[in-house]
């Protein structure tokens, strides 16, 4: 069975004056057509860098993709030239980013920023492109779109800007949309609107989505499958319901337990994970979670556990210990 996007053993590093940053250390995941994959993890765990690497959007230097393949419809994106990637970005894979304020060019009109993709990739002329841009703005819920085409980004509110970003991303009908924390910078009510918008469009056009977030609540609302990342590694992979009901990796368990819940007693302390994530300047050895894990054994220190199948189908975890039985896996 071939997936739409199949990434295997992706490794990305950054060479900084302070040393080498091991940002992504052997990430493997896949997305099928029309499927929504959520990527969860705390800041600095490598979720954004993985996706940027796939699209070759990492600045080289100081970045370097040292290994791995990213097969999109069977072709390795990591081996493509810049020219070839220009044809992929937009019509095949599109990306939206976290901060709509800084992600839109302040000196170009919204209309220009939407139509330039259309004219570059689909060869439309001015009139056709403008008409299509209008339709896109309507689709994402911008009122009075004909007036708004000639407006500049600073004349929009945060939520509207994100909608514009979505319109831009969808303009060439991509098969895969990568959304890098698109709602993190927005307030909660707008957040849900954006999530609902993407869900609606995704269902309409049968588009695959990779949704990066650190918010487990959003994941529940939008994802089919989830992967959990920690310190540049993928530590767990499961269907969304399965993940919430039967988390296997200690980190996932801890994450879920750290969530404040409405149905728990309010006078209990919130459970947090002791310690801090490891420094990415140190080449990883063994399991990255070992120092904070309450199930850690000697083997965890020396050998990095690979992603292996857990009890349920489609559920993989990178751990030496079975958290339920406390025995080795």
């Amino acid at each position: 069975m071939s997936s739409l996007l199949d990434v295997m053993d992706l490794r990305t590093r950054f060479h900084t004056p302070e040393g080498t940053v091991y940002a992504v250390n052997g990430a493997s995941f896949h997305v099928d057509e029309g499927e929504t994959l959520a990527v969860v993890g705390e800041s600095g765990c490598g979720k954004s860098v993985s996706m940027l690497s796939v699209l070759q959007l990492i600045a080289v230097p100081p970045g370097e993709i040292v290994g791995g393949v990213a097969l999109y419809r069977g072709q390795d994106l990591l081996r493509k030239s810049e020219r070839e990637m220009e044809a992929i970005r937009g019509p095949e894979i599109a990306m939206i980013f976290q901060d709509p304020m800084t992600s839109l060019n302040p000196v170009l009109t919204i209309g220009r920023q939407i139509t330039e993709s259309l004219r570059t990739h689909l060869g439309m002329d001015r009139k056709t492109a403008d008409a299509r841009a209008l339709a896109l703005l309507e689709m994402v819920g911008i009122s009075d779109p004909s007036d708004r085409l000639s407006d500049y980004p600073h004349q929009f509110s945060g939520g509207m800007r994100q909608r514009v970003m979505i319109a831009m991303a969808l303009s060439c009908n991509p098969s895969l949309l990568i959304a890098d924390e698109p709602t993190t910078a927005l307030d909660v009510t707008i957040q849900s609107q954006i999530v609902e918008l993407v869900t609606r469009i995704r269902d309409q056009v049968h588009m695959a989505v990779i949704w990066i977030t650190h918010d487990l609540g959003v994941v529940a609302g939008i994802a089919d499958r989830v992967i959990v990342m920690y310190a540049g590694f993928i530590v767990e992979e499961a269907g969304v319901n399965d993940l919430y009901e039967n988390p296997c990796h200690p980190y996932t368990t801890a994450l879920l337990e750290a969530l404040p819940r409405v149905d728990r007693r309010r006078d209990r302390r919130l459970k947090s994970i002791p310690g801090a994530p490891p420094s990415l300047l140190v080449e990883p050895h063994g399991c990255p979670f070992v120092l904070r894990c309450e199930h850690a054994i000697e083997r965890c220190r020396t050998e990095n556990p690979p992603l292996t199948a857990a009890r349920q189908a489609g559920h993989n975890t990178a751990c030496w210990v079975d958290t339920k039985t406390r025995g080795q896996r």
Partner: protein
Amino acid sequence: MTRYIIRRFLQGIPLLFIISVVLFVLMMTMGDPIATMGGRSITRQADRVRLTRQLGLDKPLYVQYIYWLVGNDWTKVDLDGDGVAETAGTRRGILRGDFGTSLVNRGEPVLQVIWERLPNTLLLMLASEVVVVLGAFLVGIYSALRQYSAWDHFITALLFIGYSMPIFFIALLSMYIFAVLFKRWGLPYLPTVGMFDPQVGKTTGQVLLHMVLPVLSMSIVSFASYSRYIRSTMLEVLGQDYIRTAKSKGLTRQDIIFVHALKNASLPIVTVVGLDLPFLLGGAVVTERIFAWPGTGRLFLDHVARGDMPVVMGILMLISVAVIIFQIITDVVYAWLDPRIRYEA
């Protein structure tokens, strides 16, 4: 937007007044017009007194300032020393364009003296500015795109050197190489004196030829600093999120550099170009002296040396006005170019 323009102009007016006061005080405390006009022939006290009265120097300072500003043809002055003001004044004041008459070029109106030389300086300055801006954009963008490469380092080092050279050193060096050494080696060489060869006449070709070395000297320093500035602005812009978005849309490299990046990077350049005018004017002084270019810079030096305060004041005042107007133009152009300011709610 119009309100912004009007506001900027209104802000400039009190500034000009303050400058005029500063310059006036400077002129009064530093010049000795009697000595200048009369030279060494004024020894008799009576003559000194008469001249003092004629030039209106016996009046209190603020009155002299007012006369300088708005003239004295609306009042009477006392020319014959009997304590009674009877003759109508003849000065119209600088606000009406009367900067007085030159003490050195007897009786010639200051504005005329300056006007004869002004176009020559403007020619040099305009040419320099064009060379600087075009060159700096080319080099700055190229360096930014080739960051970390050997070329980038080399160009940066060269720019540093260019930026640190005193103008006269550049002038002398270029004169030595392109005029003296080239001549010695039998190569075609560039002229170093004046605006044209008097034997050939003031043709366009002659002027252009004579302009090469002066413009070179004047532009290298500015070119070096602009290039560095454009390079760092481009680098900063290229690191912005919206460039990443543009890349993720699969736009071509040309589009990203010349539309998305350049449009943002050029904004600060406008400001810098506008603020550079005083420096360029100063450079003109030294350059004109070395190349014997008949411009306002040399005029300034000559007349300062001979103590001709009205001409000196006139030049200083005109320069200040030019600088302020240029700044206003720069601000307005910047506000117009940046949509965030143009479309302020």
